[in-house]
């Protein structure tokens, strides 16, 4: 019984230690995000890291309203907490209504979604199947006013 109690106490102490370290990490990450949001540029700058080949990829769901609706559902499930319900941004994630995002090609957005911006706190989303990532891109591009839309080719047949 004593051994059990000792083990449990050690486990509790470890848990406290782990979470303390983790919260410091999270706080640090959050502070990074604050700074990021104030500057309002590093996440958008990551769009420029997309290789040319990735930028030129065509969205197989371009203009597909059903895909945009499915993308909206996925956005709500996976992205809204950081980027806001209406994609307008929060302290944890940049606005996706911004011109830098809305003028990016579908391929660039797909690349960013796939690779994340790990150093800035955005995880990789390649765990979502490729068509689902394109559905999210379709949704994001459906949010833009016509004046901000990128010159993108039509749907791939």
């Amino acid at each position, binding site marked *: 019984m004593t*051994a*059990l109690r000792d*083990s*449990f*106490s*050690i*486990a*509790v102490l*470890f*848990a406290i230690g*782990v*979470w303390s*370290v*983790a*919260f410091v*990490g*999270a*706080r*640090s*990450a*959050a502070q990074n995000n604050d700074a990021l949001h104030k500057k309002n540029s590093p996440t958008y700058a990551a769009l420029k890291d997309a290789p040319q080949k990735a930028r030129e990829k065509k969205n197989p769901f371009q203009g597909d309203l*059903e895909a945009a*609706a*499915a*993308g*909206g*559902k*996925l956005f709500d*499930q*996976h992205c809204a*907490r950081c980027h806001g319900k209406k994609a307008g941004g929060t302290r*944890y994630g940049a606005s996706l209504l911004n011109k830098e995002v809305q003028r990016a090609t579908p391929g660039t957005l797909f690349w960013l979604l*796939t*690779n*994340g*911006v*790990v*150093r*800035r*706190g*955005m*995880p*990789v989303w*390649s*765990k*979502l*199947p*490729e*068509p*689902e990532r394109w*559905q999210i891109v379709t949704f994001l591009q459906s949010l833009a006013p016509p004046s901000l839309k990128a010159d993108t080719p039509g749907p791939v047949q």
Partner: protein
Amino acid sequence: MVPHLITTLICALFFLLSSFVVAQESPYIVTYNHYLEEPGSLEVEYFSTFGTQRGSNDFHAFWMEFEYGATAWWTTELYLDGQTTFNDSTIFTGFRFENRFRLLQHEHLVNPVLYLEYEQISAADKILKEVEGHDVESDHAESNAVLRSEHDHELEFKLLLSSTFKGWNVAVNPITTKNLSPSEPWEFAYAIGASRPLALKALPNRCNLCLENFVAGVEMYGGLGDTQSAGLHNTSHYLATVVAWNLPSDWALRLSSGFGLNNNSHRLLLRWGVSREFSGFGEVVRRLFGGRP
């Protein structure tokens, strides 16, 4: 007293958390892929393993996992293990503390993640989350009273190699373990898995039973001996089917039926697990301790 305090704290935090996200769980029970917990999210998981035991009593081993995404490249996790051996007793068997670090920023054909774990468990631990070295079925044949008197303090290192292509995920985990007792050798093991969602495209409407919510696959794991006797001699190996059901109501269920591949293995390992992901956990705790809203 301490268990009551912990339970109360956990319950209080659950009620405080109000925003949830849909988990996108991999179906693996033993194998790890390269996907980490999202930053600031806490995933609470419960797993059960029913195992058959030749020459002794069958058992039900169980564990809780608390998995926290500290950053986008670092996930930390605490396990609490226990087991019931039928016609014997129910005991707490120890804890594990693991950390996973993403090594590369971007996605590549193969994505490496470093896994480090410290575990303090007794020989009565039967969750079989890893099968290492010369671990065999007969190790678990003694009574709990005998097994719990032997304590292991181990460090475990894994290289999680994982690749996702056309919806398929393939993960390979070479594993090495060192018991901190100087006389104990380094032990080796492996886990490999492959899985795929049953549908690659999402439907526009919210649904529980649509195929996009299911991920199915197989995994195989086993020991590879130790530095004194490397190889397959006197090792055990398992092949298991795995499936995960990611519910839009924020829960995920996992099922696995594993079969021993040689005479040193338990004949059957049936596992199931349930998990829930709480987004914004870090933020809630930060606010509790006076952080800026």
